[in-house]
């Protein structure tokens, strides 16, 4: 009896409830863009395109860029 009372919480078929798209969208837009900007600076800044002048960003993340698979130079 005690076991059957425990079972519902560990049932393998428990599917999590959907989160409404309207609740996700604002986070997805704002943080999605922020994350893509971060990826741009790690992956491409001062390589193919430059927002900042010089070579310092490129040189600083040089090894990471090669090992993460981005075209570096």
């Amino acid at each position, binding site marked *: 009896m005690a076991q059957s009372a425990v079972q519902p919480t560990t049932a393998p078929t428990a*599917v999590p409830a959907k*989160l409404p798209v309207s609740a996700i969208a604002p986070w997805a837009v704002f943080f999605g863009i922020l994350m893509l900007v971060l990826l741009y600076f790690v992956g491409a800044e001062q390589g193919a395109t430059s927002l900042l002048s010089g070579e310092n960003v490129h*040189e600083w993340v040089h090894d*990471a860029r*090669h090992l*993460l698979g*981005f075209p*570096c*130079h």
Partner: protein
Amino acid sequence: MNSSIVRTLLVRGMLAGLAAGLLALVTAYFLGEPRVDAAIAYEEAHAAHAHEHGVEAVSRSMQSTAGLSTGVLVYGVAFGGIAALAYCFALGRIGRFGPRASALLLAAAGLIAVYVVPFLKYPANPPAVGDPDTIGQRTTLYFLMTVLSVLLAVGAVILGRRLAPRFGNWNATLAASAFFVLVVGLGYAFLPSFDEVPKDFPGTLLWQFRLAALAVQATLWTAFGLIFGVLAERALAPRPERHTPVTHPATAAR
């Protein structure tokens, strides 16, 4: 309420991405750096026709430690955040999978769509490989390939879910996977390729470098899937209040 769950998952995704980034950093340092150094040694031995770095703005020892860490950790956090947001959409919409299984499936899909598919067409290159004159083209095509691959993966999942009621989960998954592979194959066939490996660049070094690059990503996404799965599960289902007394069958039977 729902919005705060999204925020919690986002924060936990970025933390899981940071932790996964640390493990990927270990892989990158021990498997990748020796190959980067070997490739730079080759490049310097052929300095006459390689591109010149000029005055070193950042020393090699900084590039291989602090620089590498910055890049890999920022990458981990950024993809952790993006994956957590994708997870919010996927949760409960991709079939009968619990929070942990959903996280691992999402991480596997991320590894394939974000990295493996573009990698098979435009593989990672060590220093000394790649013509600086085509960097613009190669960067554009690499990002284009990544975006297409991710969109296609999302499309394949939606297609699979649409087909599932009619053909069953197994056949629907097969059909969606076949669709994904077919369109990726078309992309491979029609997008331009680059062969810019210097003639006498050691083949084994190129192979080892690319395997190391693949290992870095495999570490990152696997660790992310496992860590985020646990964190997400805890966020979604707060642990039951009664844990210790009920679970012991001997005392419970009495």
